[in-house]
């Protein structure tokens, strides 16, 4: 059975609204959380002050924190993409590169990204550099692994088709291997971007004195749980929006790939 768009929209809206209403009710009417859990209305007020206030702790600093975190996510993500995508395609297409690099990658991959924090601090010091480095390390693996898989599974039919149509090796790379690997590469990019937001928060909690993660952790020490939740909501929202951006790119440019584009 098909439902109208409006029906679907309302249906999808009900659970989040229900959670908010129950949460509000439990906190304000029954005192659940002993004052440590802020009600949604308090979170909204904190967020409003954080965004529109003028100076002072958790007042008006939202924009600068968001900008710092987003720039670190972007820088780390694009650094990982710039290194991981070409290297992954190389590993996927060259037996030599695969034999040389694949075992090394498989050894490094299981190391939890957060455990690289000490090295990030030693090399980049306390500041943006360490956060960007950590984001880049975390984003690198899903990107390179998916780029490798995509390049490795280019259809023999397409490679043979290109060769029989006198394509040069460069044309085969740019016009066959790259588009064929793109769906898989973008799957990797999507996972990487999700990880990037997680890692930027972790790194700002321990290694940087600015950004949404820093303010979140700072607010925890000052027992401002309303600000903590406001920071969580902010990171969640922008994580969602950056994910949506990739989904829209996939829809626009990979419509030909019937298995991923919907």
């Amino acid at each position, binding site marked *: 059975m098909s439902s109208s768009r409006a029906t679907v929209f309302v249906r999808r809206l009900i659970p989040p609204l229900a959670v908010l209403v129950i949460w509000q009710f439990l906190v304000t009417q029954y005192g659940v959380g002993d004052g440590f859990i802020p009600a949604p209305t308090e979170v909204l007020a904190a967020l409003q002050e954080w965004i529109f206030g003028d100076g002072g702790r958790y007042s008006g600093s939202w924009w600068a924190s968001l900008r710092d975190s987003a720039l670190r996510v972007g820088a780390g993500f694009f650094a990982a993409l710039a290194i991981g995508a070409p290297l992954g395609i190389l590993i996927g297409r060259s037996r030599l590169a695969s034999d040389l690099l694949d075992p090394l990658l498989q050894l490094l991959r299981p190391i939890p990204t957060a455990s690289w924090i000490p090295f990030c601090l030693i090399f980049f010091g306390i500041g943006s550099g360490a956060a960007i480095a950590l984001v880049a390390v975390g984003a690198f693996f899903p990107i390179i692994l998916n780029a490798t898989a995509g390049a490795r599974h280019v*259809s023999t*039919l*397409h490679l*043979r*088709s*290109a*060769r*029989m*149509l*006198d*394509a*040069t090796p460069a*044309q085969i790379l740019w*016009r*066959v291997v790259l*588009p*064929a690997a*793109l769906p898989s590469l973008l799957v990797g990019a999507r996972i990487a971007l999700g990880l990037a937001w997680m890692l930027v928060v972790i790194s700002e909690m321990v290694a940087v004195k600015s950004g949404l993660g820093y303010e979140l952790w700072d607010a925890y020490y000052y027992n401002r749980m309303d600000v903590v939740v406001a920071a969580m909501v902010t990171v969640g929202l922008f994580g969602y929006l950056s994910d949506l951006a990739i989904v829209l790119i996939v829809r626009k440019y990979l*419509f*030909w*790939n*019937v298995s991923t584009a919907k």
Partner: protein
Amino acid sequence: MNTSATLSADAAHVAAGISVRGLKKVYRDDTGDVVAIDGLNLDIHAGEFLCILGPSGCGKSSLLNILAGFEKPTAGTATLNDEPITGPSRLQGVVFQDTSALFPWLSVYDNVGFGLRNVKLSKAQKAEKIRSTLKLVGLHDFADKWPHQLSGGMRQLASIARVLVTDSRVLLMDEPFAALDAMTRQQMQKKLIEIWQATKITVMLITHSVDEAIYLGSRVLVFTKRPARIAVEIPVDLPHPRVVTDPEFNRLKSTSLTHLGF
């Protein structure tokens, strides 16, 4: 190789002959050597429509892959217009059995234009060539569609077009209609004869449908089981369009079936 041959906007399909002498192809696998072809001699005359009929796994596809330049013979020679075939080139184009051989990320127009990338023609000349080839195969109204929007039969027509557009001398077809339903298959056979009559390109078509071979071929070669040898040569002098209920058609059909062991 004949790659020095330049194409002009109005070049006709100069048909070419293929000559195979003492051809041998051995595949190595875990269980030992598999001799697909052993000492095969055969000629494909310029402008003819040769059908090769044989049981599954008899080495027909190995022959096609060698003529296409995708595989090297273990021994013996294959020449195109007296030049040895050293690799794939647009002189001998292939239409694969799999209907997904078009590049899914390119429109029908760009798929057909792919083989003109390295051809010295003006943009307008290329566009004219692509349009006229699409018209020849009957896809002129589908230039702006994408492969996933076409039926299997149309995709095979587009595959034929991308070979014809480069002024290929030989069209090698590996069970091109095997994946299609019976009705579509008949339409495609009719269309293929029209295309062949219009271009006079040399065609070698592999099939295991006796009806298809006799409907299409100006000559039919029935292959033995592996290793592939020629069991019988059947010239088909019937005029096109052929009638499958014609007594002569059925006499040729029963000769083929006898040599296939039925």
